[in-house]
């Protein structure tokens, strides 16, 4: 199956090369759609034959690449990366379809960029060699830069450069961490070996902060988030969807794959700080969303808020928190991606993203309105939809560490209801404005892009067990890896919020394993 995984990684890139030969724009679109659909089908066997009873890497493939430095082509997936790979392969056909009409110039180049993105993203999730990881990581940057900079809105150059420089700054730190780990971890780039090695506390400290900046910019965590609203506003719909659904997951994936296993001591030390930043992101992002008049900015800031739950969940270091965070990464990909699609559909009709230009959309576009309301409800974490399960598990994890942390972040859920329902009220409900009176409802092509996402919203919301079952063992391993070095005393004081020995069984955090 190792060859299979390699096929999954490189099929889109191969397709991109083949696309050069196609001339007519319509044929280019059809070919791109065929490639992404084939890719989706190709990735399904990974899900089917994934062994859910182990935490070891599966579908591993290995080949020497640059033997002088012991660099390998080495790929494999576990319960952390598999759901993210499937999320990617699922969303790419959606991205192609939603660009059908929206992209009207340089169609071929656009589709090639999308396909190269896909290979790079799947590569990041499956790389088991640090250099290979870094190559894929950097490779994502270029097509995304082009998608924003070439096919973006009026202010696209500012947004593209801001995006590029922000993430490049992070990438450089990642490179430094990579080299440092090579020398300290026994002169190897093998991620599995790097995870098993143990590092001195000061070394961990410095490497952690390099990682932290690289990943925090990608997530993005407060206060490194200001590239996100600009990038989203200027990017074409497909760009926004890829950005929100997959690219934002890279940072969180990095925290899980690198920080927790390789720098456990430093991660624990940084936990209060990251928890504080996460809570800030949750509340601050929600407040920002509340202040926006631009639909895309509103959703972009809501992403900041939602990703706060992800980073919080990762840094509570227990099974519920990490599984919740991982699930929330998928959920955010589905829901926020869908919300950007919805905004794209409106934009195609009226060429406006301003909330004030809409009102009463439910009358001319009932099916669209139903979809938008469903995704908004999912985004605000309504039980029965996907986000509730993820957010709830994160809160369970956080509550076990500190009830106050959980309480503060749960305030974000109230705010989410406020900004999302207010948005729904201003866009969907109300008297129908003359400008939107004659808008056509969803076409078949548009309905096809939204339908699978609606399905996922309810499937994960009602029966998340299949998804959680894939994660269990890998997550438990990560939690064990971070727990193998005990907490330093300073942090103990924080987590021991309960006084004295009066607490009964289960009340003291940590008693519930």
């Amino acid at each position, binding site marked *: 199956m190792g060859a299979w995984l390699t096929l999954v990684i490189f099929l889109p890139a191969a397709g991109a090369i083949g696309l050069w030969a196609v001339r007519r724009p319509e044929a280019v679109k059809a070919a791109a759609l065929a490639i992404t659909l084939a890719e989706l089908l190709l990735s399904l066997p990974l899900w089917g034959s994934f062994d859910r009873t182990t935490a070891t890497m599966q579908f591993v493939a290995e080949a020497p690449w640059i033997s002088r430095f012991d660099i390998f082509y080495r790929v494999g997936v576990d319960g952390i990366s598999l759901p993210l790979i499937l999320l990617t392969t699922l969303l790419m056909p959606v991205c192609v379809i939603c660009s059908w009409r929206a992209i009207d110039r340089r169609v071929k180049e656009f589709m090639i960029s999308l396909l190269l993105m896909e290979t790079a993203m799947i590569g990041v999730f499956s790389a088991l060699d640090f250099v290979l990881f870094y190559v894929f990581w950097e490779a994502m940057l270029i097509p995304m830069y082009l998608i924003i900079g070439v096919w973006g809105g009026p202010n696209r150059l500012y947004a593209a450069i801001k995006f590029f420089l922000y993430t490049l700054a992070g990438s450089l730190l990642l490179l430094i961490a990579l080299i440092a780990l090579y020398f300290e971890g026994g002169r190897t780039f093998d991620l599995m070996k790097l995870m098993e090695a143990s590092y001195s506390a000061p070394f961990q400290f410095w490497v952690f902060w390099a990682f932290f900046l690289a990943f925090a910019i990608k997530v993005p965590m407060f206060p490194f988030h200001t590239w996100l609203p600009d990038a989203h506003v200027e990017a074409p719909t497909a760009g926004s969807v890829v950005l929100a659904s997959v690219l934002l997951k890279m940072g969180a994936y990095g925290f899980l794959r690198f920080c927790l296993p390789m720098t456990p001591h430093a991660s624990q030390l940084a936990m209060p700080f990251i928890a504080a930043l996460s809570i800030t992101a949750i509340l601050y992002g929600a*407040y920002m969303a509340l202040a926006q008049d631009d639909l895309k900015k509103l959703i972009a800031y809501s992403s900041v808020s939602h990703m706060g739950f992800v980073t919080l969940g990762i840094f509570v270091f227990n099974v519920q928190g990490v*599984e919740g965070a991982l699930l929330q990464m998928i959920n955010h990909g589905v829901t926020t991606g869908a919300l950007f699609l919805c905004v794209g559909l409106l934009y195609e009709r009226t060429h406006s993203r301003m909330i004030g230009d809409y009102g009463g959309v439910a009358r001319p576009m009932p099916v669209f309105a139903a979809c938008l309301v469903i995704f908004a409800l999912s985004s605000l974490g309504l039980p029965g939809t996907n986000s509730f399960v993820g957010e709830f*598990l994160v809160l*369970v994890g956080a509550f076990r560490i500190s009830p106050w942390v959980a309480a503060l972040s749960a305030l974000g859920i*109230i705010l989410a209801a406020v900004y999302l329902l207010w948005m729904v009220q201003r866009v969907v409900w109300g008297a129908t404005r003359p400008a939107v009176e004659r808008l056509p409802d969803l076409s078949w092509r548009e309905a096809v892009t939204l339908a699978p996402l609606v399905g996922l919203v309810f499937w994960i919301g009602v029966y998340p067990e299949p998804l959680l079952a894939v994660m269990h063992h890998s997550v438990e391993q990560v939690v064990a890896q971070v727990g193998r070095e005990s907490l330093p005393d300073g942090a103990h004081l924080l987590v021991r919020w309960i006084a004295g020995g009066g607490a009964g069984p289960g009340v003291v955090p940590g008693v519930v394993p």
Partner: protein
Amino acid sequence: MTLALLIALLPLASFLTVGLTGLFGGPFRGRGHLIAVPAAFASLLLSLIVCWQATEGLRLNEDLYVWIASGTFRAAIGFQIDPLTAVMLVLVTLVSSLVHLYTIGYMHGDRGYDRFFAYLGLFTFSMLMLVLSNNFLQLYVFWEAVGLCSYLLIAHWYERKSACDAATKAFVVNRVGDFGFGLGILLVFTTFGAVDYQTVFGMAPAMTGVTLNLLGPLAWLGLSGVHWEIGVLTLIGLLLFVGAIGKSAQLPLHTWLPDAMEGPTPISALIHAATMVTAGVFLVARVSPLLNLSPTAMAVVATVGGATALFAATIAVTQTDIKRIVAYSTVSQLGYMMLACGLGAYTAGIFHLLTHGAFKALLFLGCGSVIHALNQEQDLRRMGGLRSRLPITYLTFLAGVLALSGLPPFAGFFSKDEILWAAFQAPGIGAKLLWLVGLVTAGLTAFYAFRLLYTVFHGSSRVRPEAAAHLHESPSVMTIPLVVLGVLSVVAGWIGLPGSTNWIGGLLSGVMGFAGHEAGHGEEGAAHTIVIGLSVAAAVAGWGAAYLCYVKRPDLPALWAQRLPTLYQASLNKWYVDELYDRLFVRPTVQLARALWRGIDVRVIDGTVNGVGMTLWRLGREAQQMQSGQLQHYALFMVIGLVLLAGMMYLFG
């Protein structure tokens, strides 16, 4: 199990079919009732069977499937059937099916006819799953789901801004309550390691006396000596009760319910009177094994209930929108139920919940019939003298008013009497005070109930000519539910006659016993007779006052309003709570959001980022100047460099 599943799934199926055909078209488009109404009645029939089985001793507690499992956390979707669930099932399906029937007439010709039926189905499903739940998390899930249905149905006429505002407000205020509820569930899990009722209630007694230090995190800041100990059971009880406060519109989260009257009247009857808003009371009764262990939490429940009962009644006496009067009445009556639960008289609380469900649904549907007849007129000041034109509505409304006022032998009398008796009996001066509050509220209740009756149906007509033109009694699909509920408003109280024949008390006391006071139920002393006498006297006094003010001397109310302008204005303006919240929460939140965005995001963070960019760019431009091509400049730079080098060698060398 199959039966319970079917009860819940029938309305769900109705929601899916009616909703999808409404959206995409199909054979039943515009005729959603053909599916929804039979489904609702079938659900009612099955509920009656289950209820009968429950009285015969059926108990069920079974998981359907594991919903979330992560580490040691495990939550299932499952069913529990006991008498409490059984009576709730009957109430929910009964009112729901009658409202389904009524809707055919009331919503006839509405553009959102199918949508309305679809949401009714979704609501009924959610409410049934809520009462059938066997664990806290499922309860929470459907707790929010009924809130969603409430939101969607309040916004049914979404073209009206007021309806949308009310819907958003309802959802957000409920979220505030759910925030506490959610934290309560998290605390339940960390305390007991489980979220299903059986495990939690079984372990609860062992946790009495266990305390938490709420100020624990301050230890991190070096303040390890600071303590604020609170019993873990008390904290759980209070957090769960915050949820109940939101859903049952108790002080201080009551403001959403009167606004929710923007929704079509059938849902005011179903959701905002008989079922959803009583979920808070249901929750309190359901977690009685936990609450019983915490006197503090119980006292809070009773006090909030009593205060809300009186507070809402003082508002109801001056309102002019007929639906709002009934809405404030609902808030007040829910306060009674909370009061009962807080005193440990859970059976009395649930008994009142049941009778109230019947007569309040009736009053709302009656209001709906009036509104329908008057072409959407809701203002008292443009009604009057409708008695002869709407005879069935009048008679049934009268039954509802008598039941609400608590006059014997109507339904409200028995249940309210039991609550007041429980308050009177409970030990402590606080309980006596609450009894007094309840008694005064009883008087006010009769007053506003009869005020409503007299101004709508008696006296001279103040109906606008254009509305009077097509004034008519409602069609039979609307009057049949009125008659059924009217009969129930007369007889429903008889299931809980005081003394040994108290059927409902016997049924429920097994589930929600409270060692404290209910033992004294059997004794029928002189005290009980006096307490009953007093509450009837209060009701009669309220009636008399209403008769005086609105039949005998119609000039009196205006006179009183002039005499006591402050009090009158305060009541008319709902004690200015909405205005207060607007100043305290709504406006500051939006202002803060905008200020943060412009201040921090745009100015500080982006300012820094752009500033760094600009500085680098400028530095580059400056450095560019050095390459001027003039030899003397390069020589100068060389000299400066040499001096610097020499200086450094001198200093550090």
